[in-house]
């Protein structure tokens, strides 16, 4: 069974600085993989290289066996790869509903059908379902900018899910979210995962969140992969502890 995501010897340098130094790993279908590591370990750079935001200096990325290194983010998204953002990235002037329709509309039909067809691109029901799933029903017509931080995080995740992606990369989904909302977010992610059998890769700082959500964890430090295993094992791994304490 081919891995959903396969990263081979990925390397990224900026001038003289090596941000990612020959990282290789696989993500199996249906798993929730966590990537942790101290600040500056290269997690975000790795993500951005996988997602086409940056061009890797060396190495390959494959999605479902297909080479996607350096592909534009929009093309990658149409292959079924979605992401959420660390810094909030909803569209504040559009309503919650419109944000969701936008998130799915590019996967419906063609440019022409989007011009001459329905104004919601036929996504009215799907958006409604997503709103209910994330329990945002009373906010559906509010401009997204008026939602609380935690609610926007939920919307961000909802938008990533709208197109029914195979693979979702979540960039620090727990960042800045209060405890109650955090539990709600994790619970919704787990529910979506169980329902759709989607594959997740999560970068996170918050240990509790990662341990509770992920089935397998990779640890990055100084651009290199230093450990891999279940959350339980990682917690006890001396190299990992060293990497965190050493900072």
């Amino acid at each position, binding site marked *: 069974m081919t891995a959903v995501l396969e990263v081979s010897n990925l390397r990224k340098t900026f001038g003289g600085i090596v941000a990612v130094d020959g990282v290789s790993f696989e993500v199996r279908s249906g798993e929730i993989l966590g990537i942790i590591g101290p600040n500056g370990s290269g997690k975000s750079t790795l993500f951005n290289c996988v997602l086409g935001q940056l061009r890797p200096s060396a190495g390959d990325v494959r999605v479902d066996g297909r080479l996607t290194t350096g592909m534009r*983010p929009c093309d990658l*998204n149409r292959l079924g790869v979605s992401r959420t953002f660390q810094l909030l990235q909803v569209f504040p*002037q559009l309503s919650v509903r419109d944000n969701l*329709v*936008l998130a799915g*509309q590019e996967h419906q039909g063609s*440019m022409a059908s989007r*011009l001459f067809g329905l104004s*919601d691109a036929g996504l009215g029901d799907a958006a409604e379902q997503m709103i209910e799933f994330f329990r945002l029903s009373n906010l559906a017509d509010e401009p997204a900018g008026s939602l609380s931080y935690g609610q926007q995080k939920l919307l961000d995740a909802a938008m990533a899910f709208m197109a029914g992606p195979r693979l979702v990369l979540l960039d620090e989904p727990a960042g800045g979210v209060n405890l109650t909302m955090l539990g709600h977010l994790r619970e919704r992610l787990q529910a979506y995962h169980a329902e759709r059998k989607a594959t997740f890769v999560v970068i996170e700082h918050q240990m509790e969140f990662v341990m509770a959500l992920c089935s397998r964890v990779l640890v990055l430090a100084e651009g290199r992969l230093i450990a891999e295993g279940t959350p339980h094992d990682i917690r006890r791994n001396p190299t990992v502890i060293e990497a965190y304490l050493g900072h």
Partner: protein
Amino acid sequence: MTRAGLTIVAVALAAAVAAPFFLKPFGIFLISTWTVLTIAAIGLNLTLGYAGQISLAQGAFVGIGAYTVALLTPAGVPFFAAFIAAGFLCFAIGWALGYPALRVQHHYLAFVTLAFTTLVFLVLRNEQWLTNGIYGITGTPRPTLFGWTSSGARDFYFLCLGVLVVLSLATWWMLHSPWGRAFVALRENPVRAQSLGLDTRRYTLMAFAIGSSLGGLSGALYAPLVQFIEPNSFALGLSFNLLLMVIVGGSGNFFGPYVGALISVLLPEWLRVAQGYYLIVYSVAVMVMMAFCPAGVLGLVERASRLVDGRRKAISGTALHTGGTSK
């Protein structure tokens, strides 16, 4: 749109229909110019206000449209065929110009369109066998529709107004379709939009090509309106003028072009005392506006109405406002 907004549009439309009956021929010429320039401004607003690209070639596209009609109609081509041809030609040229320029960042389109405008001017001026060079083309005939001739000033005004209304409705439709949503996304957060599968390059190119074709359609009406066209009318000055129009009216606002074009057409008249100085006043106005209110005149109106709204809410108490905002 709000009830208040719809009322204003209805009133404005009524005024536009009634106006020619109260104006002398020169006044009718002015409002006809307003309708024609608004069409070009709507196009530029798409490019600048919705797709965030600077085009300095809108004047050149008006010129291409004008010359297309001025050359085809005397040769026997029916006006509306030439009209459509002008639109398609400018769409194609816009696409061809934009495709390489938009692959790069850094507002390269601004430079390419600047170069293009100068090139178009040189061609129009030099290729006398085709365009009659600096001597220009006179007497472009005004069209006849089902037996109704539009050669009279008032009749031609109504033709222009009709075209403006049709194109406005078409633009309204487009901006409320998924394309419109895509344009908002493009403008607000292109990185996020890309990650959702939105091909920002394609949409930007489309906005620019459509915007350019509207310039061509505007030119197609301009030729029979002014009855004398020559290369200098379509040089960089017109492109600047259209740009300033869109900015002052309110870039990215649906009604911005209408307001901006109105100001631009009337300003030289108001400043008749300070004849040549209106460009200076205009450019200073733009700089001041960019510093304090980049959203233009309509942005100021919006800010003012929000202030009034806020004050009203504070006075009457928020208890009266239940539920969400109505749009």
